[in-house]
Each structure stands twice: as structure tokens, then as C-alpha cells.
């Protein structure tokens, strides 16, 4: 009895010591980690991870400096603005996610695993509420599905106004060069080439926005740098848009597409499982638009948001989303899928 008590006391002490170590590492990840990214991993003894996060921060700072510096020095020159903005967005993304990854990595040691195999079909039906000061519309019914045929994905999506005529249709196709498809992959990383077409009709306001988009998107499973259960997303591309007005000449324009996200997985894909992420979305033609604020800088930044996808059973899941830009968009969907053959 005495021996058992001693073992239990030692186990509890070890757990307390572990908790203490984790708390110290998490505190270090927050500060000085806000300045020296990877500080938490360093304190936790993951020296290679810490170095990688620090390098990511330094590359991010360099890219931000190069991007914003070029924009300032060139006065936003039409000849180099697009690559300068893209560089600044990538740099900002690297800077932010390298810090978040350190904090989450040492605080939790990973809470889940990625999906390594994807179902051939996933379909969703949901509702979104949009509060845009410039538009009267509010509620949309949304629907869409992902159809996967080998490395190819086809994803039609529709937002249909409930009680109003606004309607947005999008068809995206993607070719997966690497990563999970209906066949199993090693981890959650992937690289896609995406092509999309969008048509967004505003009948009461008498105009329609259409665009064709091309881009590259990807995900990096941070288990590759010993931060299991978390990931970084990034995408970059361009959209060629046309705005048609009733009774007036059309406008042609283009748009830089860029997005980054940091996320975590919760649980195992074989049971209850979720993927939660926070993101920056640079596009200005979506329902959220770009970010506005009362001070000097409105218009150039895109929107910020969060998304959660949870699978509650083998067949049934849910999505919750929120996004803030010129408008606020929130909503949820029910998702169903064809069962995965594991």
C-alpha cells in the first residue's frame, strides 16, 4: 500500500512538473516569443523546431520589409505594386503563423491529426448572414459540394438570397500535385493548382460581377517540424474580373488573390474530428470585402476570419464560419460525405 502511494505521488509530481514545464514554455512562447519566435519550443527542448520558427519569422520580417518598403519607396508604382503587395502578405503570414504555431505547439503538444484520405463526395447546405452597410441583403442559403476524382476536385458552390435576389455562383476546379486525395497521404500537407469562375448578381443594384481566377494553394502540416496537430495554409493567384451594369459600359479589372491561415486539428479522423483555423483573405470582391476602420488605412487590407469544420459521425459534420471586412459574414452549414474507405 505504501509503495502504491509512493508511485502515485511520484506520477502526480511528474505530471505537475510536466505541467510546470508546459506553462513555462507557453509563457516563453508568448513573451519573449512575440519578438523571438520559437522561444517556447526552445524552452520545451525542441531546438530544431525553435530554429525553424525563428527562421520563418526572419524570412517573414524580410519579406514584409521588402514588400512594404518597395511599396513606400515606389509610391505604390503601378509597375511593381502587385509583387510588392504579394511579398508583404506572404511575409505577414509567415510572421504571424510562426508565432501562433509556437504558442499552440508548446501549450498543447498537438490535439489531433490530419485527414490523410478524403471522401469522394462531400456536400454542404447552410445559411449565412451578411451585414454590409451598403447593401440591404442579409440572409443567404448556401450549398455546395466537393467531387474528387483522383487528383482532380470539382467544387460548385452557390449563395442564394433568402427573400432577396442577390446570388453568387462559383465553380472551382483543382488539380492536386501532392497530398491527400481519395488515396491516403503521409500527412496533411498538399499543393493544388486551382481554377475558378464566379458570377455574382446584384439585381436590385443593377450590376453583375464575374471573374475568372487562377492560383496555387497549399497546406503545410507542421508535424514536419515537430508541431503535430497544426498546419499553415497559403494561396496566391490572380482574378480577371468584369463588372456589367444595366444600361452602361462594362468595366474590366483584375485582382490579387492571396490568403494565409493557421489552424489545428482536434481529434482523430476515424472518430469525432475537427479542423479549426484563423485566416487572412486578401480578396475584395467577396461578401466580406476588404477591411475598413475609422482611421487612416482602409481599403488595401483584405478580411480576417475563422472557420471550423467538425465531423460528428462518419457521415455527418458541420461548418461554422465568421469573417470581418467591409462587411461581417457569419454562418453555419451541415456537411455530409460519402464514407471514406480507410
Amino acid at each position, binding site marked *: 500500500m505504501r509503495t502504491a502511494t509512493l508511485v502515485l505521488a511520484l506520477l502526480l509530481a511528474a505530471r505537475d512538473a510536466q505541467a510546470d514545464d508546459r506553462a513555462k514554455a507557453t509563457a516563453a512562447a508568448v513573451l519573449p516569443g512575440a519578438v523571438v519566435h520559437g522561444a517556447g519550443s526552445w524552452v520545451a527542448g525542441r531546438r530544431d523546431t525553435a530554429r525553424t520558427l525563428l527562421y520563418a519569422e526572419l524570412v517573414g520580417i524580410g519579406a514584409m520589409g521588402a514588400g512594404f518598403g518597395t511599396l*513606400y*519607396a*515606389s*509610391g*505604390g*508604382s*503601378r*509597375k*511593381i*505594386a*502587385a509583387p510588392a*503587395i504579394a511579398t508583404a502578405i506572404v511575409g505577414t503570414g509567415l510572421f504571424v503563423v510562426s508565432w501562433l504555431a509556437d504558442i499552440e505547439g508548446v501549450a498543447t503538444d498537438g490535439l489531433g491529426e490530419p485527414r490523410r484520405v478524403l471522401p469522394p463526395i462531400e456536400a454542404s447546405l447552410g445559411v449565412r*448572414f451578411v*451585414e*454590409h*452597410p*451598403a*447593401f440591404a441583403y*442579409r440572409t443567404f442559403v448556401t450549398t455546395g459540394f466537393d467531387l474528387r476524382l483522383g487528383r482532380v476536385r470539382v467544387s460548385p458552390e452557390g449563395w442564394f438570397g433568402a427573400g432577396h435576389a442577390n446570388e453568387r455562383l462559383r465553380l472551382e476546379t483543382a488539380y492536386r500535385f501532392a497530398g491527400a486525395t481519395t488515396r491516403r497521404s503521409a500527412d496533411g500537407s498538399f499543393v493544388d493548382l486551382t481554377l475558378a469562375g464566379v458570377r*455574382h448578381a*446584384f439585381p436590385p*443594384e*443593377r*450590376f453583375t*460581377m464575374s471573374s475568372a481566377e487562377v492560383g496555387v494553394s497549399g497546406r503545410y502540416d507542421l508535424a514536419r517540424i515537430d508541431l503535430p496537430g497544426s498546419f499553415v495554409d497559403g494561396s496566391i493567384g*490572380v482574378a480577371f*474580373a468584369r*463588372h456589367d*451594369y*444595366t*444600361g*452602361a*459600359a*462594362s*468595366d474590366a*479589372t*483584375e*485582382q*490579387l488573390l492571396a490568403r494565409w491561415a493557421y489552424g489545428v486539428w482536434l481529434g482523430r479522423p476515424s472518430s469525432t474530428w475537427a479542423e479549426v483555423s484563423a485566416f487572412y483573405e486578401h480578396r*475584395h*470582391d467577396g*461578401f466580406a*470585402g*476588404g477591411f*475598413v*476602420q*475609422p*482611421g*487612416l*488605412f*482602409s*481599403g*488595401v*487590407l483584405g478580411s480576417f476570419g475563422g472557420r471550423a469544420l467538425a465531423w460528428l459521425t462518419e457521415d455527418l459534420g458541420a461548418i461554422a464560419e465568421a469573417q*470581418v*471586412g*467591409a*462587411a*461581417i459574414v*457569419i454562418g453555419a452549414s451541415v456537411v455530409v460525405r460519402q464514407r471514406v474507405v480507410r
Partner: protein
Amino acid sequence: MRRILVTLAVVSSCTHVAEERTRADERIGHAHTAAIDVDVDDGAACVRSIAPGVIRLRAQTPAPVIRIRANAERVRVTIDNVLADATLSIGTLVEDAGCTKTWDVPLAAGAAIASLHTPDEASRAPYRFALLADVQEDIDRVGDIYARMNADPTIRFVLFSGDLTRRGTEAELLEFERRESELRVPLYATLGNHELGADEVYFQRLFGRGNFHFVFRDVAFTLLDSASATIDPRAFGWLETWLQRGRDLPHVVAMHIPPFDPVGTRNGAFASRAEASKVVAALAEAGVDLTLYGHIHSFYAYENAGIPAYISGGGGAVPERLDGIGRNYLTVDVDPAARRVLGVGVVRID
């Protein structure tokens, strides 16, 4: 559902970033004290100071109508930023410093309605105005631009489409106004995003409304506050009224941040492309003849929804490089009789 919508509406107040300014617009041109009341129709002039027997206004349009009530027989009215040949409908001119004039205005039964007029107000002959924007930190060199404008006797007034200053502080705006005295014509300005960098929006207190509309010699002018890369819904409502009023006239619309950047990947433009399309669709539907913008420190000529559009952000702020443009302003010739814009020219300073 109702609870969700109410919550959404409350949270969304953070996206109504220009609402405070449009509410402030509504208060401009109205001042009330125990001794004297002033109301300027449509807020076409802001009340800079008011004291027993003395009123100082800054005109933001060529012909504001001023309503005065006071417990006095006369009031001394000074109006800044007037056309040099302007006269007041009542009263005696007691001081004339070009664009600043002072009148001794008699009150009948403690009240008077005074309006500014010019000798050519009924003329339908062509005339010229200029457009300038984005002086910002280059205030010390703006005199070069004013000298070039002064050398052109056909310029009747200047529209200024935002970014008078670097941060919009009171001191910066007063310095802008001091330099403005070098200009021989009035300058009707809306604000830009660089007027939003101080602890309050001093522009409206010192210069007047961000959103306003006037007609001069049968040409309609609408200036909008797009300083937050959006048009406040209340201002959009005003715009719809002004578009109706200007439907049968040549109509010029100016604002600081353009709905669309001609270089779309840069997006020095509205935050929401959907809102940008909504605005230009409304302008096109109402037959607007010309749109003028600032914000981008260069010169661009393009079209939005078929309406000729010009960006002239050449007031001296950090210039767009590699464009070979430099500081610039626009001259716009309008022909009220022919009901059209005759042409737009760019004047390069450097």
C-alpha cells in the same frame, strides 16, 4: 433568427466607419447661442466662430444661403473662401481681402436671409475649374501649384478631392488654410483618409462637410466622403437625391478614394468591389458626366461604367515612381449651354 440578426446588427456597427462623419455633416452650418443663431442651407458653409454681433463662416460652395437671427440691429459677417467677385444679397461690404470678405448685415426684426452671388451666375458660357488632391506633407511647396493656377485667369475655383494634410491635425489644417490664401480663387474640399489620423476629424470643424452638392452656372457638382474606402449609407442616400437633382445638368462627381483602382491588383480603392460597383452603377444610371478622384499619387485617365474618370493625386505627397508624371493638377472645361464637359487637361508642375 431574430436574435441572430439583432446580434449581427450590433456587432456590425464596427463596419459603419464613416457614420460619425455623416452625422457630423448634418450639424455643419448650424450654430446657436443665446445672442445669435446661424443656419446655412444644406450646410454649404461651416460656422468658424460666432459671438454677439459677429459671425465668421467658411464657404464650401459658391452661393451659400445664410439665415441669421439675433437680438441686434446689425451683424458683422465675415465669409472665407468666397469667389473674389462675390456679393452678399444684403448688407454693406466693409472689408475685401479677395477670397475673404466682411459685410455689415442689417437685421429686420432680428432676422436676415443673406445669400452669396456672383456677376456671372446666370451665364451659360463655358468656364474652367481645377482639381487638386494629395498635398499631405508637401504643404511647403504647394505655393508652386497655386502660382500656376493663379496664372490661368480662366480657372473659376478649385475642387480639392482629399488629403490636404498628413494626419488631419488642427495645426496642419490651419497651415493648409494659411497657404490657401496664396490662391486667388476659392477651394472647395472634401476630405481624404489622411484627414483621419488625428484624435478627431478637425476637417469638418474647419472646412465643412465631407459630403456636399452645389450647382454653379448650370453645372452640378457632388463631392463625397470616401476617406474610409466606403460611402456611408446615409451619404449614399444623399447622393441619390443629388443625382436626381443633377440629372438634367452636366454633373461632376469627386471623391478621394476611387471606387476602382485602374491597377486592380493594387486596390487603392474601395474596400468592397461590390460597393464600388453599386456606386458607379448609380452614377452611370443618373448620367454623371465626369468622375474625379485622388488618393493615388499620379495621373490616370480611364472609365468607370463608361463615365470618364480621372485620378490626380499630384499635390506633392510621396509620388508614384516610374510613371514620369510628378506633381500635377487637372483643369476641367465645362459648357453649361451644351450640357457637357468640354475637356480635361493635366497640368504638370515639375
